């Protein structure tokens, strides 16, 4: 079966390249402007980039941890 153009390895490599390029572009765009900081920390270089990235990693790790405690088979309540 012919692969859809969107899932071909070449396309996916291209998408990653465009994505990484865009990420770099947002950092550059942030550097050339005077970002207004309301607090101290949010005036640091590329604050939103690193803060968003780390917050997400943190939330995913916390989620994994909580999942170990609280996840059950999806038939858990059906057994009654």
């Amino acid at each position: 079966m012919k692969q859809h153009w969107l899932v071909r390895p070449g396309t996916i490599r291209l998408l990653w390249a465009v994505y990484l390029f865009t990420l770099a572009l947002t950092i550059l765009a942030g550097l050339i402007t005077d970002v207004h900081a309301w607090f101290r920390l949010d005036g640091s270089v590329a604050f939103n980039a690193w803060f968003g990235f780390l917050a997400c990693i943190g939330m995913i790790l916390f989620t994994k941890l909580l999942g170990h405690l609280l996840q059950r088979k999806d038939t858990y309540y059906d057994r009654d």
Partner: protein
Amino acid sequence: MIGISAVPPGLPLILGALLLPLLGPRARAVLVLGLPLLVLALVWQVPDGTSLRLTFIDYELAPVTGDRLSRLFGTVFAIMAFAGGLFALNRSRVVELVAALTGAGSAIGLTFAGDLFTLIVFWELLALSSTLLVWSAMTDRSYGAGMRYLLIHLLGGVVLMAGVIGHVADTGSVVFTAMLPDSPAHWLILAGFLVNAGAPPVSAWLPDAYPEASPTGMVFLSAFTTKSAIYVLLRGFPGAEILIAIGLYMIFYGIVYALLENDMRRILAYSIVNQVGFMLCGIGIGTEMALNGTAAHAFAHIIYKALLLMSAGSVLYMTGKRKCTDLGGLFRSMPLTTVCGIIGALSISTFPLTSGFISKSMISQAAADQQMAILWFLLTAGTAGVLLHAGIKFPWFVFFQKDSGLRPPDPPLNMRMAMILFAFLCIALGVWPAPLYAILPYPVDYVPYTYAHVVAKLQLLLFSGLAFFIMLPYLKRTLTITLDWDWFYRWLGPRAIGQATRVVSRWHAHRRIDVLRHLGHLFGTLFLYHGPRGILARTWATGSMVLWVVILLGIYLVAYYY
């Protein structure tokens, strides 16, 4: 004189809903689409102040009382009823449409309630019609979930009613106006409101009940109950700081549980709790900017969440599957559903040029203006988390990830049109926010599209997306659910009662004779003193009574002298 402005705007929807079973399909379609438009017109006929007064016992009720806030919510509820009706037109059972329109009418009714009694009537009607909407999926699971939904909401209604009675007893007034959480009555009212908002510890009713409704039913459900709770909190408890803590809990609860979830519509249900959390934070901050932001966010949220659920509902309707583990790769055969789902996902993630960007940002701005640093950082982290669970996870696992081999086409025309309408509104509000800003409760002094804001938002969201794809191995879906507070009443409660019943009946079987003997003694003693010939049942001479009175008076006299 009573004119058109004195018609409660929700009433035509409720009365019209009751006519639906009597009509043929064509007339029913006219009513389902026409009534919300009529109601939208009525909403804008309601002037500021009270235009209808009724007397109930000694209280003066004000069932039609308007201002900017009530017209804003009335508008979005009417738009929602129209699009939801369009989406549901081809397949819904009549009972589902009746329940949906009654729910919409009740929600609109309570946004124009000027007194607490009218509010409660519509509040309860909304709970009943929402239960019926869950049940109208007519499955065993929907029956159980609807029953749990009903119990929680009747409990919430009782708490609210108790608070209202206390408030009326304290103040003598039934007028629904801003309150402070400063007395037991007001705490009860606040708690009753918060039950419908999906606040802890009862948040679980929402992801428990909504996803058991039909593909079209959940679209309606997502809009009315939680957002009418936001409306009453905006009016009743602006600036109540406890709402910030509750809101923050809900933001992160929604993210974490949605990340663990496998059922696509349960992901979106947790996401409702998350979004309502942002709104509670806005109400808790309580400045004009924050309240405007909350109202705008509720407006935008109803539209993009309905769009997301229409897209998920279309997938469920066309494939019969609801778990991420069974889905994937649907973009090949459902391009329109995919694009509309992505537009909804971009909006909820607050991407520039979508409705989320111009609304939710006002809440963060209000936190910054008030120098609430911790809140601001947590709201920013929460925004990143929304992108994770609703912005990427939902479209990625449903429309992309692996190829599930499923090749369903896009859904029927009416469903496609409803999605296109709401996708258009998501973008239109994002590109041209002025009409929404013009109808917010307070004058708007906020410019969303500044260079710094757009760049900051793009950095935040795009780097959060990077984190999602880097951590993708940790986010693989499994056939699991996640335990929540409802474990106490769904698992522990029934088992505790079962165990207690066994213990009591075993004890009863062993000790039955003893118990009966003890009871026999007890009744024998009672009979001795209180029976027909018992000492306390005898007729006494009048003289003895006089003697006792003299003795008592004598004691009193002596006590008085000393």
